[in-house]
């Protein structure tokens, strides 16, 4: 029989809070991290983004450690992991894995120096810097699978525990705003000129954001928040920079998770979807959900609070999703007004309450990748 796998600790570092409770309070109060920024070092024109204030970050970091020499993103990720490592109080031995999820890591290191002189742009080095801080014994496992990275990390952690390789897996996911990423999304004409409006009629694209999130995935049920009951990560095999028109990969990823969990789609109480607010992504998700008869399930996108935080988004949205399920809440999709996808989906418009047992998290990204993970609240 396959081992049971649980999430027992969560944390996040975002522009609207440096712990889960503050993030929940701000979401509840309709506070978004997205603001208009004027920073010619990042982009010539002004732009909307959800950015962490440097001073707040440095103050919080100084409270945790006097250590120096860490990049901005490394500080965010250390802050995300630190309290859960302390609370878990585990011996970090060869049965404990460290998984890091990111799309671009320390890409800003390329701005200032040649890669030969600064190895921190290498993702394995970036992960090792954080691993060394916490004194992990095992080699870091880096997942870089575009925008599904954060939720794929949960699936990978679960599989590594099931394979018997580890008992506990600490995951940290993070990405930061950079000229590199802003110019890239802008070159695709994928950026919204207003704060993003997931699933809305007048949506015009993404707003970028930055965040770090961390969880402990464990075979030990003690202090359980949710059980991970199924997962799938299936490619569209259709296009490298756009989603499948039929939502094929997402449809199959959810199916794969449902079969493993041995539950029907109708049992899903709540979906935390990707909802980037690009015309194609949101439409694709609506099609995939309808193919599974999930159109009645309450669904939200948290991009209106955080922007698209790339490799962090899947894990951050899982952390908030888990907390909302534990508190019997349904969180509103900030930025949503009038449904703008061709098939009906049940977008959560206002904060509400619901006792959800089964919770689905999905994400999709460049390269045609999709990931779905199913969670169960167990009392």
């Amino acid at each position: 029989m396959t081992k049971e796998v649980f999430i027992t600790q969560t944390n996040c570092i975002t522009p609207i809070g440096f712990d889960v409770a503050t993030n929940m309070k701000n979401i509840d109060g309709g506070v978004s991290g997205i603001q208009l920024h004027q920073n010619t070092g990042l982009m010539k024109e002004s732009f909307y983004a959800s950015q962490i204030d440097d001073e707040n970050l440095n103050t919080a970091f100084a409270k945790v450690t006097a250590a120096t020499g860490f990049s901005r993103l490394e500080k965010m990720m250390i802050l995300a992991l630190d309290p859960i490592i302390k609370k878990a109080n585990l011996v970090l031995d060869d049965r404990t894995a460290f998984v890091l999820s990111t799309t671009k890591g320390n890409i800003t290191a390329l701005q200032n120096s040649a890669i030969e002189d600064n190895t921190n742009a290498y993702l394995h080095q970036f992960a090792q810097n954080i691993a060394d801080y916490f004194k992990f014994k095992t080699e870091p496992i880096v997942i870089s699978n575009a925008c599904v990275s954060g939720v794929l990390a949960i699936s990978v952690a679960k599989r590594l525990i099931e394979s018997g390789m580890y008992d506990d897996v600490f995951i940290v996911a993070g990405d930061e705003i950079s000229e590199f990423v802003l110019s890239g999304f802008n070159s695709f004409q994928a950026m919204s000129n207003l704060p993003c409006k997931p699933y809305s009629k007048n949506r015009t694209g993404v707003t970028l954001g930055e965040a770090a999130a961390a969880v402990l995935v464990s075979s030990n049920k003690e202090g359980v928040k949710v059980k991970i009951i199924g997962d799938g990560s299936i490619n569209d095999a259709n296009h490298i920079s756009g989603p499948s028109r039929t939502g094929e990969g997402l449809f199959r990823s959810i199916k794969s998770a449902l079969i493993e969990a041995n539950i029907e789609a109708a049992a899903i109480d709540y979906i935390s979807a990707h909802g980037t607010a690009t015309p194609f992504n949101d439409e694709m998700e609506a099609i995939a959900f309808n193919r599974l008869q999930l159109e009645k399930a309450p669904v939200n996108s948290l991009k209106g609070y955080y922007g698209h935080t790339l490799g962090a988004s899947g894990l951050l949205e899982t952390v908030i999703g888990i907390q909302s399920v534990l508190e019997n809440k349904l969180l509103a999709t900030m930025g949503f007004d009038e449904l703008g996808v061709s098939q009906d989906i049940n977008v959560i418009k206002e904060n509400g309450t619901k006792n959800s047992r089964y919770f689905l998290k999905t994400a999709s990204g460049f390269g045609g990748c999709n990931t779905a993970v199913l969670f169960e609240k167990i009392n």
Partner: protein
Amino acid sequence: MANKTYIQSFCTIEENQIKVNGKILFEKEQSLFSDFSKSVYQHFNIDYPKFFKMDNLSKLAFLATELLLEKTENEEQENNTALVFSNKSSSLDTDTKYQSSITDKGSYYPSPAVFVYTLPNICLGEISIRHQLKSENSFFVFAQFNPLFMMNYANILLEKNKATSVLCGWVEYFDEEYKTLLYLVGAEGELEHSEESIKKLYK
């Protein structure tokens, strides 16, 4: 692990040489990767114009896969082969090219055709499209090739029926330095899928 798994075939590409199942199939005198990869494309009569739009990492992964997987001409033909790739330099070869297109404000020209390749998993997408693999895929980064991790991850995909075979391995490319080992793992075969045998193939 309930059932034994086997390495069914393998391909290495390094130093202008291609081997499949240990046999040299193609080699070329000292040359740049752009020339080498084009020669490989021509030598094996590959007909896939999209190849020339790919970045070096995708070209490398594409060519190795081309020699290992059967062609899937028919889009309806389903093949549940998972892709589990890893490397050291992620997409840094293209990242540095993209960065130089935005660093100098005098010649500022961020191109979406370059930006899309600043993610290592794009090569998985390219291969999935070519072989119509609507299957599990993931890309990992390690300081060096990690046979034990790769073996465990491939086995759990097979054991949990997430895939019927797994194409896995190492696809490393940075600034003309490259090495790839891809191998196909399944329930049948002769070469046992063990950490030892993967290490031997990589050497």
